[in-house]
């Protein structure tokens, strides 16, 4: 357990605290954020060394305000310990540059566009569930949760679906490798280079001969009156790919563990599937997975704390989602909670552009699964590991059904 040291009139320091590796967080993720937030809603860590101070913001209100205030908190790097890395666009741009790329992406992920994919998403989830059901049980994470959004992403992007497992491995290397295991960033950079290489081939092919897929659509978008250049296009596709794979899959893992352990709630969703959309919002709040980072652009006082230009803030939505000041009875799952203004998709200009697709995929997976497999449980003696970092998730979820 990291000890708090509080010099007079200063923010508490948890020396060495790192949300990728903190043993308590890994052993007991959300209760640990709760305890840390109760002890001090803002604390600092020296894990970035003497380059800059890192401030962890654990309260809902501070997360919301910081994510909205892009002028004070820049997205120019979203790594908490900075390293050379494949840029992500538009995530790692600030307005007004950000706005141009965001405008090129938004119309392709708007609610009324995403809705047109519903039949395809439903057909895919049904066929994957049927395939998994025939096995009579197994690891939900690898057997369904990873396959479903990844296949959908590859189809929408016009990427080779038969290479799915390779794409999943690359995403995991980029997103899950702790900096402590990859101090020079080589592992993640290698995976990022492989992803960009594979994307570049497809981008070149679609430039020559457009198809009815998202890469073809993005190739035809314009920034400042000219087609998007290769480098920013790679940075956009790289972001969409990493954001599309290890996110819906992880929320599905948490949601199905919750449902396996709560048969009353499960029965309710089986009998009243019209409750699923609200329940999806509560799963998103209860099991928010993303932790993002911003760079402080000027000396400022925020959340009662003095920050210097160049410092970084860490915003764990998993902590914000359990803040009792925003959510009454935050550790109780209330399927029809209202209001439910969770920050699972962030806030401010960088709000997850794929949020509407994610919501649709989550809803359809819950609907199609429970039509086919209404009763299931966690396999006896199963050891379910959890990882925490820029995203959090379960490593496995062994399920059984009869």
């Amino acid at each position, binding site marked *: 357990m990291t000890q708090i040291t509080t010099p007079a009139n200063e923010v508490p320091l948890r020396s060495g605290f790192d949300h990728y590796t903190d043993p308590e967080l890994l052993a007991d993720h959300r209760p640990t954020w709760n305890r840390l937030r109760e002890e001090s809603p803002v604390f600092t860590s020296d894990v970035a060394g003497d380059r800059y101070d890192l401030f962890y913001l654990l309260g809902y209100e501070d997360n919301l305000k910081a994510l*909205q205030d892009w002028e004070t908190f820049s997205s120019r790097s979203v790594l908490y310990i900075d390293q050379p890395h494949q840029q992500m666009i538009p995530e790692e741009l600030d307005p007004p540059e950000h706005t141009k790329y965001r405008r090129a992406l*938004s*119309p392709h992920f*708007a*609610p009324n566009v995403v809705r047109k994919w519903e039949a395809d998403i439903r057909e895919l989830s049904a066929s994957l569930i049927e395939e998994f059901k025939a096995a009579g049980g197994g690891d939900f994470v690898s057997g369904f949760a990873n396959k479903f959004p990844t296949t959908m992403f590859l189809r929408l992007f016009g990427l080779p679906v038969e290479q799915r497992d390779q794409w999943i491995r690359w995403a995991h290397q980029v997103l899950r490798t702790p900096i402590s295991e990859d101090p020079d960033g080589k592992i993640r950079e290698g995976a990022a280079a492989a992803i960009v290489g594979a994307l570049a081939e497809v981008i070149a092919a679609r430039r020559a001969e457009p198809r009815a897929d998202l890469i073809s659509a993005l190739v035809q978008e314009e920034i400042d009156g000219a087609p998007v250049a290769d480098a920013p296009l790679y940075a956009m596709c790289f972001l969409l790919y990493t954001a599309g794979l290890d996110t819906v899959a992880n929320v599905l893992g948490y949601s199905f563990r919750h449902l396996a352990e709560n048969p009353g709630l499960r029965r309710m969703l089986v009998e009243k599937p019209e409750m699923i959309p609200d329940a999806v919002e509560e799963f998103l709040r209860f099991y928010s997975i993303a932790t993002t980072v911003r760079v402080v652009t000027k000396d400022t006082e925020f959340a009662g704390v003095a920050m210097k230009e160049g410092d970084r803030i860490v915003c764990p939505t998993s902590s914000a989602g359990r803040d009792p000041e925003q959510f009454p009875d935050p550790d109780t799952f209330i399927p029809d909670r*209202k*209001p*439910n203004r969770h920050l699972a998709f962030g*806030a401010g200009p960088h709000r997850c552009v794929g949020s*509407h697709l994610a919501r649709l995929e989550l809803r359809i997976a819950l609907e199609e699964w429970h039509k086919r497999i209404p009763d299931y449980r966690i396999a006896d003696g199963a050891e379910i590991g959890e990882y925490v970092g820029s995203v959090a998730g379960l490593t496995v979820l062994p399920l059984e059904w009869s």
Partner: protein
Amino acid sequence: MKVTIDTAKCVGHARCNALAPDVYALDDDGYALPFDGEIPVELEAQARDGADACPERAITVS
């Protein structure tokens, strides 16, 4: 009841439209279309639900 949307604050969560489709309309990018005016009595509850759902607090009901 009067509803005002601060479109400068809207970042396209689209929760207002999800909860109150008869009150809040979206543009082609999925962001709230400007609205500033009276809400018919039969839509008041919906309008309030949609406003309460906005994570950015971009909608004011008065």
